């Protein structure tokens, strides 16, 4: 078990190093010189050159890479070309919204998907199964921004239960902040829950057809007992994979929902930075997302090993 985790940890650390290298090099070849962009089109070439020196853009490539990585390790992401504030501050502010939103949406999605998937699989072809399948089909098909707008229309404009957008900040207290994130989280969770419920259902149906489920019944377990004790854990592996992917997707992929609800999240930050050629911010957001994905992958691997003892000694 320890060896398995150590191996996974090592291989993921290597991925992180490789990713940082690729991100750095790609940002180098992307057209658009930050210094001339910052100074405007009519800038004096000498002033631009001075700025380049100030930003450290004229040092040799390997040195700049090492400098960047050393900075990252100390939490120093550099200074934004456009905002002129440390990138770490910018990102920290946004993460405080995007991360809770992601976790909130993921929790909702899991809470909806598990019971729905289990119900559908255990009563296959029943009315309950057909309703779950119909509802999830709809959930996958509906674009989430449209659903978000319906939510705003119903719960913010008509019922006035929630505000239509914006974020009061965590200083305003825990519950007001959570309340502001509720509608966006629901809008994000719906399609994810639909996908997850379908995966749960098909994985569970496969497991229910396994020979060991018949063994469980032959021992005298009722259908429900057999499902709880023998099927669920076996059905979990594909579900965990999807949850891991959804986390990474939600963290930065919520940009449309962030726009609908006027939330200053990571997605919006990345979008603005790209349009303004603020490469240092883009680079930092991307490396942060890569890091998040790698951490989540590691957690999912850990969950795999807990769910399935066969993986604990497998070569990866």
């Amino acid at each position: 078990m320890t060896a398995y985790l150590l191996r996974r940890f090592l291989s993921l650390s290597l991925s992180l190093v490789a990713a940082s290298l690729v991100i750095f090099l790609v940002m180098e070849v992307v057209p658009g010189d930050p210094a001339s962009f910052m100074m405007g089109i009519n800038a004096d070439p000498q002033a631009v050159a001075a700025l380049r020196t100030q930003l450290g853009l004229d040092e040799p490539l390997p040195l700049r890479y090492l400098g960047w990585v050393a900075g990252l390790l100390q939490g120093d992401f550099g200074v934004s070309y456009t905002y002129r504030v440390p990138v770490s501050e910018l990102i920290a502010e946004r993460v405080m919204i995007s991360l809770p939103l992601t976790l909130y949406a993921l929790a909702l999605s899991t809470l909806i998907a598990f019971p729905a998937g289990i119900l559908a699989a255990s009563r296959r072809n029943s009315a309950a199964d057909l309703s779950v399948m119909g509802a999830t089909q709809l959930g996958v098909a509906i674009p989430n921004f449209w659903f978000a707008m319906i939510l705003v229309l119903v719960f913010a404009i008509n019922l006035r239960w929630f505000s239509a957008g914006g974020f009061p900040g965590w200083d305003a207290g825990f519950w007001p902040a959570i309340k502001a994130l509720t509608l966006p989280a629901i809008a994000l969770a719906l399609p994810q829950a639909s996908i997850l419920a379908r995966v749960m259902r098909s994985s569970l149906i496969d497991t229910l057809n396994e020979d060991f489920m018949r063994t469980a019944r032959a021992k005298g377990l009722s259908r429900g007992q057999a499902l709880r004790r023998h099927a669920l854990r076996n059905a979990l592996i594909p579900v965990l994979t999807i949850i891991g992917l959804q986390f990474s997707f939600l963290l930065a992929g919520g940009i449309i929902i962030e726009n609908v609800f006027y939330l200053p999240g990571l997605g919006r930050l990345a979008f603005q930075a790209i349009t303004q050629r603020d490469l240092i911010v883009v680079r930092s957001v991307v490396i942060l997302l890569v890091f998040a994905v790698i951490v989540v992958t590691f957690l999912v691997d850990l969950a795999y090993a807990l769910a399935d003892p066969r993986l604990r000694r497998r070569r990866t």
Partner: protein
Amino acid sequence: MPVLSISGLKVDIHGNTVLHDIDLTLDPGQILGVVGESGSGKSMTALSVMQLLPHGSEWSGRIEVAGTDLATLDEPALCQMRGRDVGLIFQEPMTALNPVRTIGDQVAETVRIHTGASRREAFAIAREMLNRVGLGEDRFPLDRFPHDLSGGQRQRVVIAQAIALRPKLLIADEPTTALDVTTQAQILDLLKQLVREENMGLMLITHDLAVVAGLADKIAIMKDGEIVEAGPTREIFTAMRHPYTRALFSASAHVPERGRKTEPGDIPVLSVENVVRDYQQPRRNLFVKPPPFRAVDHVSFEISHGENVGLVGESGCGKSTLARSILALDGLQGGDIRLNGHVFTSAGEGPHPELRARMQVVFQDPYGSFNPRHRVRRLVTEPFHLVRDPPRGTELERRIDRALTEVGLSSSDADKYIHEFSGGQRQRIAIARALIIEPALIVLDEAVSALDVSIRAQILDLLAGLSDRLDLSYLFISHDLSVVRAITDRVLVMKDGKIVEQGETESVFRNPQHPYTQRLVAATPSLEAALAAPAN
């Protein structure tokens, strides 16, 4: 009082009657063999007793387990009965256990759901039962997982959980079909001993007459959902009143008629010289490369023109790896393989496609080895990809036609899909696919192992006839010694990657030299031996 009494049992699944008017009784301490081919309803009978029939089934008649009429029990009462009064053992030990729970946990579960036993008490009983089935504490602690165990060991765990509460009735559905002969002999011994010592009734379901002949007190022979004949074992086999019993018996012991003896030519069809096949083992330590596992260890043999050679051995002995190497599906680490004198494959080099066409293969599973979306025409002409100038038009039609009629199918079958055929017919199509390119050698990897005895007899006849007519050589790989004995001229016995004995088939089987061969031959259930033994 009998532990099981079934009378007038009838089962319909979605309106199709699968069991008609079944009558069976089983007394404590007795073994009842239920014998039949696939689809005869023998497993359905077992599921009726467990009341675990598939969805959409309806049953009528009377089933009594230890005097209790099952019709009077509701679902919770049936759950109480299953596992406590009746234990069930399945065919597939590899998949019958939950892979994510320990063996101790799974055996203890039977105890815990039926008795109020605490976790500690249940685990103590589980320990006792695992010891009872021969899995001692030192090598098999309770916290081992099924994937650490071999097939035979897993089957012992399944048996332990079935007998944990000392049920009155034990049902074993093909318990040894997936196991090697020596393991089969051990499991059958264990079952027999448990029945005698615990005074249980055992219903032993099998397709193999030889297995029940040496074990069962009574036998019921089933066909198409009916019992065609039932009675004490000896009486059934000596009298053989029913024609189906006779047919089953003769098919089990079938030896195909084989004509011409082979005369060793100057160039052997296949010559295997010093073949070595290594597998890389998984790394346990990040910095130390583990030594390779040698699956085939300097194997050499030859097959002459028209000769049938058998390759036998237990699972894991390397016979399938050797087959893959001969077929050049894997690379070699040493030695070389010649076909008709030309180098077919050697270390680091694969065969030329044209040469590959001279060697074809038929696999075990007649269901999994065809693409279900292709018509038979396309399936059987697949090997033509190997030749530079494949036949077209009427020539192609002629070849398809000939291959299909050669294996006993008709030319109209070419336009059908594979799901329209039975297992035996599919195996004929697999043979047609191998034949169509007129190979010199066909490798038959467990080619008849998945077939019922009567179908198996027909396929063996077909193979023998083809070999005579077309001057074909076979390499016949099987774990089933009786089949190899029936069809081959020479036999190779493989153990731990080495050929430990080879020679004329009859002399090897009559007078095995190597201790391993002696063990194999002794463990193989034999109808004649079982019937010749004095009554006990």
